[in-house]
């Protein structure tokens, strides 16, 4: 199938590549933009708000699944897309999330194809593997994605990946790279795990303390930039070779444990729903606090020569210190 390329917006005059970064209001994207700024022309987009950026970085508030999104491709000659922005499960309803995360990504990939974008990076999550009692540790990238078996609320994460996978083999010219990071933490990060560890009282399931991996948001930003610059399309887990049980991490972050009965499985789900813990301990993520999802990050580490620079203690210190400061 030959795709006729539409004429894109004017190419940058300075010979620098133009990179579109989605989710620009988030802690991770902000760091990525800071790393790219100067060496590339960055275009920042976010569905939440028009992000305040440094001089010379055009910024847009736009929803990817809406029509206005295409104008960005008409106004700028986009060479690469770093798709970081995603609506977290606690931020919106399931339908709206599906529209934004899956249909929005489809629109994005279609536009990339149409305007001859040479490289696309997709920021996925380790949640796609699903937390199950039968999980072996050190999952490789070809392990089945069983998140949708665990809960309907993670269907959008899995669907986003299968969509990206279709484009990965159908349109090799897009040079798609999918990154599946473990828990990303650090200053400004607003995902469920980061919100959870920022609490004074943190729910834990009695008798269950699954192994977990944590990555500092600065290391994840480095990983994204490295994957972009080296351009080796494929699917990669991004995780360190260091592990800690969840309850130990809770202690290390200076949280007090709030014990919740772990069995029968409906009890923690009911408690989470009744007490409205949706943002930080949502019912559909409860299995992830019960059973481990440990990634083998070797492929990414070896392909890109990447090692995290911050260890677990560096990561937890931030949460400990913020608690001390607010006490």
């Amino acid at each position, binding site marked *: 199938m030959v795709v006729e390329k539409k004429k894109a917006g004017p190419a940058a005059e300075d010979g620098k590549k133009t990179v579109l970064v989605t989710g620009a209001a988030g802690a991770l994207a902000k760091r990525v933009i800071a790393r790219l700024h100067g060496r590339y022309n960055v275009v920042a987009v976010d569905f939440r708000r028009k992000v305040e950026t440094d001089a010379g970085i055009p910024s847009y508030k736009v929803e990817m699944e809406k029509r206005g999104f295409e104008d960005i491709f008409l106004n700028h000659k986009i060479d690469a897309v770093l798709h970081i922005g995603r609506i977290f499960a606690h931020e919106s309803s399931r339908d709206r999330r599906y529209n934004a995360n899956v249909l929005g990504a489809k629109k994005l990939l279609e536009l990339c194809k149409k305007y001859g974008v040479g490289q696309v990076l997709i920021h996925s999550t380790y949640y796609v593997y699903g937390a199950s*009692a*039968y999980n*072996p*540790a*050190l*999952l*490789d990238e070809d*392990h089945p994605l069983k998140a949708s078996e665990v809960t309907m609320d993670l269907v959008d994460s899995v669907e986003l990946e299968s969509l990206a996978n279709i484009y990965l083999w159908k349109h090799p010219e897009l040079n798609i790279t999918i990154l599946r990071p473990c828990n990303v933490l650090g200053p400004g990060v607003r995902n469920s795990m980061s919100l959870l560890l920022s609490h004074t009282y943190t729910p834990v*399931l*009695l*008798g*269950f*303390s699954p*192994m977990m991996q944590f990555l500092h948001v600065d290391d994840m930003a480095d990983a994204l930039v490295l994957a972009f610059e080296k351009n080796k399309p494929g699917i990669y887990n991004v995780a360190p*070779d*260091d*592990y*800690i*049980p969840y309850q*130990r991490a809770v202690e*290390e972050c200076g949280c007090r444990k709030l014990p919740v009965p*772990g*069995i029968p499985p409906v009890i923690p789900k009911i408690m989470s729903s009744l007490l409205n813990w949706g943002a930080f301990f949502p019912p559909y993520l409860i299995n992830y606090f019960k*059973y*481990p999802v*440990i990634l*083998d990050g070797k492929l990414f580490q070896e392909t890109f020569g990447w090692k995290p620079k911050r*260890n*677990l*203690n560096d990561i937890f210190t931030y949460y400990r210190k913020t608690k001390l400061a607010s006490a």
Partner: protein
Amino acid sequence: MQIQEVISLLRNFSAKEELLQRLVTPEIEALVAKIPKPVGSFGFDAWGYNEDSFKLGLATFKLLYDHYFRVQVHGLEHIPKNGRVLIVPNHSGQLPMDGVLIGIATATNPKGPRAARAMIERFFPTVPWLGNLMNSWGGVIGDPVNCNKMLEADEAIIVFPEGVRGSGKLYKDRYKLQRFGNGFMHLAMNNRTPIVPCGVVGCEETMPAIANIAPLAKLLGIPYAPIVPSLFPLPAKVILNFGPPLHFPPVKTEDEVTQRVEQVKDEIRRLIDKGLKERTSIY
């Protein structure tokens, strides 16, 4: 002693710390320090093994090993000091006591201690506390992915190819090897791993079962529900015999694999017979 001093002493008293100090002797510390096992910055590995927990488990079960089962062990020199290895024993005794005792034998091996990983049943992770505890002592669910990854990381693994067929068999079938699965042979061949066979004598008598109530087992969702004289293992004397490592280069057909499994079974039978001859009394 003044009241204040007593209070401050009491305040600093921690039952957990006290127990740890009594149990985890300097000898145990020295042994664990010698084990070639990489762990992360908090002392954990990817499967949940934890050094401190392992020390505590080792210290506790070492008491049973020395004084209750009075384990006699031969052939420890056959277990390599480092590098990947599969330890393949016969399985018996309803409870996986044989796995624990082999674990203690390898961890206290004066010729080079190892933290041997045991493959555990898949339902354990769903049991609160127990699942995490078994992981922290080195137990891992018996999944081929786990096995391959651990062999890649040069671990020592204990595999019971008989599985529940072996541990759940009745007393009348004692020391009769049940059907072996071929999985362990594939793992050994694919990862160029030596197999150290092991004959366990005595564990059959720790929990002699006269019958198995299959409907009850089915009802409870457990592998078997034996009628046994005591729910706690009886103090049988246990003899472990490790044999020389067996090396198997890869073969193509499943028939050839089965033949090799038979070779391992023959060697285990020989080691069991050796143990039975060495035994002077059952208890």
